[in-house]
């Protein structure tokens, strides 16, 4: 039991010793151990200085004003007399050509043959008249034909004017006829109107009739009133009769007597009224007769007036008939004149067309005269080329340096391709390359460029001479063209340039590798030191910056810095602000 207890105590003791030893070691070496777990960073001082953003590019030196030596015929080159880079004087031989018909001469002979054949074919053309051939052979010039055409054209123009004048006269005559017809029709219309007119105008007869009608109406009203009074009296008598009968039936004799007296009175009134009624009736009849007579008088008057007016209109219309016939005759004459003149115009036009056709036959594309001229030209070309066939050379048209020879011995020259390119004496060289718009914005014409690996060249000077849109991508790129001067410059030489804006001085400059970025913008990490009993501890601290300018290696910044801080450039592990770091030994 005790043995077990002792063993256990030893175990506990050993464990405690091991634990304390480990703790002691950890305490002493904690800093070292921790240092190895920290990211190692390389740092650099914040500096002040200048930033120069350089634009670099490469291009091939070309002649500033190259002269291309061209020949017009395809000839085989026997030998080349010069080499690229040779300086030659005007008239010096560049190429010797073989003594052999050139392709151009063969082609010219073929053309001559064709032209002659075409002329012969044209003579057999059935459209040709004897006058055509006669005139072509007599050598009537195109000028003469032009004069003839002018005469014919004038005749056509005069005929056209005559037609126009005649047409105008027809128009005028037609207008006159239309006007007369219009007036004639106006008479017809007026007659119809007059015929349907009532002629109810102001007249004595009409006044008489109106008065008679008025009197008739008055009489009728009077008759009506009298008739009414009569009816009333008759009605009253009938009523009184009824009352008398009732009084008699009732045995009221007094009342019956009174009523009888009243009835008698009414009967007297009735008789008087009857006389009045007869008089009024007679009056009405008399008035009706008078009114009728007045109406008849009025009607007679109207009929007379209408007849007079219509007769007058018809007389005037009859007078217009003669004028109308005359105008229509004149119109017909004018129309006939137009027809005649139009025919005349057609004749003139035909003459002109015939003349043109004749000119075409003689001077046109396949005209006799043209074909003859073609033969002459082809013959001339053949003669010219035959002269060059023997002992031909190509000579330098200017003094200068040969920069390019495009044909070698044994090959043929071509009319389209220059056989050689020369740099004229006294002219400079150019070099160009393309840059982005952003890069071009930092440059200006006149900027001096440096040569990359400048030690290779002695006295070459390069100056920016123009900034133009690059045709390959005009929206995005600019073509920089430089003037290159110097004794060692040759065309075709490849040069690399570096050109940049003037440098500016800044207080805070850090290496590009120190600039970092996250969603809060650009920043740098600086190292802050803190002394402790176990050594100095270094902490990364974030400083937000604004990048003012950059070149290939450095950036100028604006930040809350004193200017003597250590800036972290690289690290072995990602570094976060506020975390401890270990400085690289160097």
């Amino acid at each position: 039991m005790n043995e077990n207890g002792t063993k256990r105590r030893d175990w506990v003791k050993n464990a405690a010793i091991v634990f304390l030893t480990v703790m002691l070691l950890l305490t002493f070496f904690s800093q070292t151990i921790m240092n190895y777990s920290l990211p190692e960073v390389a740092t650099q001082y914040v500096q002040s200085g200048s930033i120069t953003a350089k634009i670099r590019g490469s291009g091939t030196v070309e002649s500033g004003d190259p002269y291309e030596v061209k020949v017009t015929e395809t000839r085989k080159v026997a030998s080349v007399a010069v080499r690229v880079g040779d300086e030659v004087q005007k008239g010096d031989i560049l190429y010797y050509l073989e003594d052999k018909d050139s392709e151009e001469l063969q082609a010219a002979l073929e053309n001559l043959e064709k032209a002659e054949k075409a002329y012969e074919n044209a003579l057999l053309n059935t459209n040709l008249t004897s006058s055509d051939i006669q005139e072509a052979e007599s050598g009537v010039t195109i000028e003469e034909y032009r004069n003839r055409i002018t005469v014919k054209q004038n005749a056509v123009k005069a005929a056209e004017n005559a037609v126009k004048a005649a047409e105008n006269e027809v128009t005028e005559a037609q207008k006159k006829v239309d006007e007369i017809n219009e007036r004639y029709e106006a008479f017809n219309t007026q007659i119809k109107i007059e015929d349907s007119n009532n002629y109810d105008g102001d007249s004595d007869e009409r006044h008489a009739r109106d008065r008679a009608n008025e009197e008739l109406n008055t009489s009728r009203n009077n008759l009506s009133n009298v008739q009414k009074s009569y009816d009333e009296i008759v009605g009253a008598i009938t009523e009184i009769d009824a009352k008398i009968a009732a009084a008699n039936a009732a045995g009221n004799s007094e009342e019956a007597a009174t009523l009888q007296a009243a009835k008698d009175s009414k009967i007297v009134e009735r008789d008087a009224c009857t006389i009045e009624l007869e008089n009024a009736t007679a009056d009405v009849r008399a008035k009706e007769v008078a009114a009728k007579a007045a109406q008849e008088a009025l009607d007679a008057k109207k009929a007379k007036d209408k007849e007079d007016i219509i007769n007058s209109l018809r007389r005037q219309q009859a007078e217009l008939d003669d004028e109308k016939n005359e105008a229509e005759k004149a119109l017909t004459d004018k129309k006939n004149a137009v027809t005649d003149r139009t025919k005349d115009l057609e004749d003139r036009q035909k003459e002109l067309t015939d003349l043109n056709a004749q000119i075409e036959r003689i001077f046109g594309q396949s005209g006799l005269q043209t074909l003859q001229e073609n033969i002459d030209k082809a013959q001339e070309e053949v003669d010219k080329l035959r002269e060059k066939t023997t002992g031909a050379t190509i000579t330098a048209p200017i003094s200068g340096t040969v920069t390019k020879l495009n044909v070698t011995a044994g090959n043929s020259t071509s009319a389209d391709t220059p056989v050689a390119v020369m740099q004229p004496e006294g002219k400079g060289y150019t070099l160009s390359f393309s840059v982005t718009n952003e890069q071009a914005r930092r440059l200006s014409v006149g900027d001096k460029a440096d040569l990359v690996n400048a030690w290779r060249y002695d006295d070459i000077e390069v100056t920016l001479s123009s900034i133009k849109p690059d045709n390959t991508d005009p929206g995005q790129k600019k073509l920089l063209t430089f003037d290159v001067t110097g004794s060692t410059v040759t065309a075709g030489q490849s040069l690399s340039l570096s050109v940049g804006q003037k440098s500016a001085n800044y207080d805070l400059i850090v290496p590009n590798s120190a600039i970092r970025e996250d969603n809060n913008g650009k920043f740098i990490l600086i190292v802050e030191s803190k002394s402790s009993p176990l050594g100095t501890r270094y902490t990364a601290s974030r400083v937000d910056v604004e990048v003012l300018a950059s070149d290939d290696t450095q950036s100028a910044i604006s930040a809350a810095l004193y200017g003597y801080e250590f800036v972290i450039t690289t690290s072995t592990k990602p570094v976060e602000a506020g975390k401890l770091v270990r400085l690289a030994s160097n």
Partner: protein
Amino acid sequence: MKKIVLGISGGCSFLIFLILLFITSHLCHSQLSQQAAKRWGNPQDTAQISCFFSVYARITKDSILEFEHSIDSALVDASVVQESENAGARLWADAYSADGQVTLSTERGTVSADAIGIGGDFFLFHPELLLYGSYFSGNDLMQDYCIIDEDAAWQLFGSSDVAGMMVNIGGQPHMVAGVIHREDGRLAEAAGLDSTLVYVSYETLIQWGRSNGINHYEIVMPNPVSEFAYKYVKEHLGSDEKNAEVVENTSRYSLLSRLKLIRQFGTRSMNGKAIIYPFWENIARGYEDILAVLTLFEMLFLAYPVILALVLFIIWWRHKGWTLRDVRLKLQDKAERQVEKLRARKNKNGYGDEITEGKEQKEKKQKEKKPKKRRKKADDLGYLDEPSRGFRRKGWKRR
């Protein structure tokens, strides 16, 4: 003994789980190409999206430019605006790149190398380890920079410290902006980093090298809601599914993604698209596979102690020696005592006496209760069934 073995094995299993968890976490965070969102802003609302195109996708600089112009309006529509006071702060950054080959030459030698023609902020997404110089961007004024690896620097110049030197690419002079350390190791070499690699501008690659066309595009942008950025990029750039693949890098190593990957076991290797992945995507996919395996092991090593604990709990529950009724009765008893105590206090007069008496009573009760409690606990745990263990425990305490 059996319980001890089980306990130790459970503990070891849990320990292995924790180690695997640590390794997984370390591997996830070691992939810098996948961590651009974390470096750019808050990873909770920022997403890094990558697109990979086949040669038939015909992606051009103009189509990228068109897409870039549409992003700002999309973000405004989503009510995402720039809040930073720093001048020139951007909400998003992107990069495109193309595979190809270039030939570099100096007076010392000539090197034919695999090249990546870059546009935009490529090195924001791929912070390769810089030995000398600095990165360059597709937005720089000049596009005649190149970044070479140590091998190329040695072959071309015989030194690594060559930042700022000139090298000819296709006969045109280019400036060496930086020298990087090319990632090595089995995975990196298999992914395509087995030969010299040069980074040049996209313009340089198409003008002076041999380009396969733009086949990668990456963007880091705000992600106000889940998958906003992924869907936007997919709809506007990766809609042709046969010729494009869109990946959300931010969440590709999350537990959910890893579990999905495990579920895709067997089908993941099948590919019907003519897309050649760049080395960083190959490495990322390699790590995905490794992480999937580790996740599987994590689950197994976590499952063992959890199941063991569950079994032990069930066994203990079955042999516990008390019932819920006992607990209820005890609680009732305690409540009654409290009530009695309160009543007794009310009956007392004089505050000081009450306190003194109360203290004395309390002490007495505690003295009475303590052994009872211990006893009770011992009973509950079943120690009293094993006298030796109870004795050992008491004896060790006394000493």
